[in-house]
């Protein structure tokens, strides 16, 4: 089980990097959706025997994170007519460096944490912390609302990854509930993005601090 899970987490860490380094919104959305799909498949790989409930939730996760949410985001991008991040607060190279530093710190930190012996060899904890940090960097460092949403999704992927440690004791209902919240959240943000675009003629969140009549 561990090698294939580690492979997927490695893929997710690489996608964090791509999302941080890319200025084009479609590329960032694609990276986030592939990451969501990779992480969605993980419960199936982690279970030793087949469980229809786990499989159902995993497939549902893949569908929502891989197809529904990216579709909503792409539609918002098209409606708002934005293609790329122009001038982020934190430049692309510095944010790449921050993400890399965060990942190194996450690996170092997870060695110091008192983990269960069965989790010691897996990348779950460093991958989760690295994704959370990447999400924070994107949330803080980007100016366009849609990039910030992508940062939020990466952050959520990190938390989801952390939750997989407790997969045996958390009811999957909680997971399903989070997924529903996420979808509704993205749905609402899609509408808000459209409103911001109409009111301010731009998706730059810096302009939201300016009061207007």
């Amino acid at each position, binding site marked *: 089980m561990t*090698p294939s899970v580690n*492979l997927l987490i*490695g893929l997710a860490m*690489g996608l964090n990097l791509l999302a941080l*380094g890319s200025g084009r919104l479609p590329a960032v959305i694609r990276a986030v959706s592939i990451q969501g799909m990779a992480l969605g498949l993980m419960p199936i790989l982690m279970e030793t025997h087949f469980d229809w409930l786990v499989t159902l939730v995993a497939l549902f996760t893949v569908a929502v994170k891989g197809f529904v949410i990216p579709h909503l985001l792409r539609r918002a991008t098209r409606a708002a007519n934005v293609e790329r991040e122009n001038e982020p607060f934190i430049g692309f190279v510095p944010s790449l460096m921050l993400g*890399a530093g965060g990942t*190194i710190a996450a690996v170092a930190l997870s060695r110091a944490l008192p983990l269960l012996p069965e989790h010691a*060899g*897996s990348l779950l904890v*460093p991958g989760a912390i690295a994704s959370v940090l990447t999400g924070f960097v994107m949330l803080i460092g980007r100016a366009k609302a849609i990039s910030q949403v992508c940062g939020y999704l990466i952050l959520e992927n990190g938390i989801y990854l952390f939750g997989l440690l407790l997969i045996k004791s958390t009811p999957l209902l909680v997971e399903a509930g989070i997924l529903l919240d996420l979808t509704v959240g993205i749905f609402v943000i899609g509408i808000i993005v459209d409103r911001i675009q109409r009111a301010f003629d731009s998706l730059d969140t810096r302009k939201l601090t300016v009061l207007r009549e």
Partner: protein
Amino acid sequence: MIILEIILRLVLWLVLAPLLPGIINKVKAWVAGRRGPPVLQLYYDLARLWQKSVVMSTLASPGFIAGPAVAWIAVLAATQLLPLGPAGAALSFRGDVLLFVYLLALARFCTAWAALETGSAFVGMGSAREVSYAVLSEAALITAVLTLSVHTGSVTLVTMLAPAAGAGVVLLGAGLFTVLLAENCRVPFDDPNTHLELTMIHEAMILDHSGPPLAVILHGASMKLLLFALLLTEAVLPVGPLSAVAAAGALVGGVLMVTVGVGLVESWLARFAFKRVPMLLTTGFLLCLFALLVAWKGGAA
């Protein structure tokens, strides 16, 4: 018997290498809907260049000829360190991976040195660009090598490349592919077809060479491409435990896939602006670094 085997390996590398640029050009032509040059075009070019005479600048020292020759020999020596699946390498000893990295660096140094011999400012600019990109791509290559070394606990290329790279294999593959594109001056970094003065890198560097030295440089470049394609294939695929026939099939298939991949990248991507190239190289370096972290952490189990 051993001498015969080494000769066979040398001939294999020398003869097969010019095939790869031909395949790349064929893929590019096919994507663009053209018929394209024949796959063997580079062989014809090399034969034609070999028959021509050399134009030497009056300023140039013998280094102008010696540089490409030394670079060619260095790349050829590096190819002999790389194992061919279960057949092993012609030459293998503990720590040969360091020699491998240094031979590639020596090849680059000698090409740049020969280019600077004529004293042309334009060629100097090309060399400066090539060498400054190499700083980052070499760091990525060394990190990739370190990843393989940490994963297998060995510093010999034969044992390092026998298993796949474990959990970080996706990261390492992506990072090494970026390094391959940068080291061989392929599209997002440099355009091998362009002769537009302001954007040339590798082509600007070898502009003053002609005749046999140019043929040697071109052949060396194609060998380097084959070398990196094989390194990438062996790092990603676990060829060590396979039988001889299966391993040969996997290697040929892998190298062909990498070559076609390079052709597709060249067809779909435009060249990046100069200021964005370091960022792409940094991404490649970080991918290799993450693979190293994964190998380090995953190996602790």
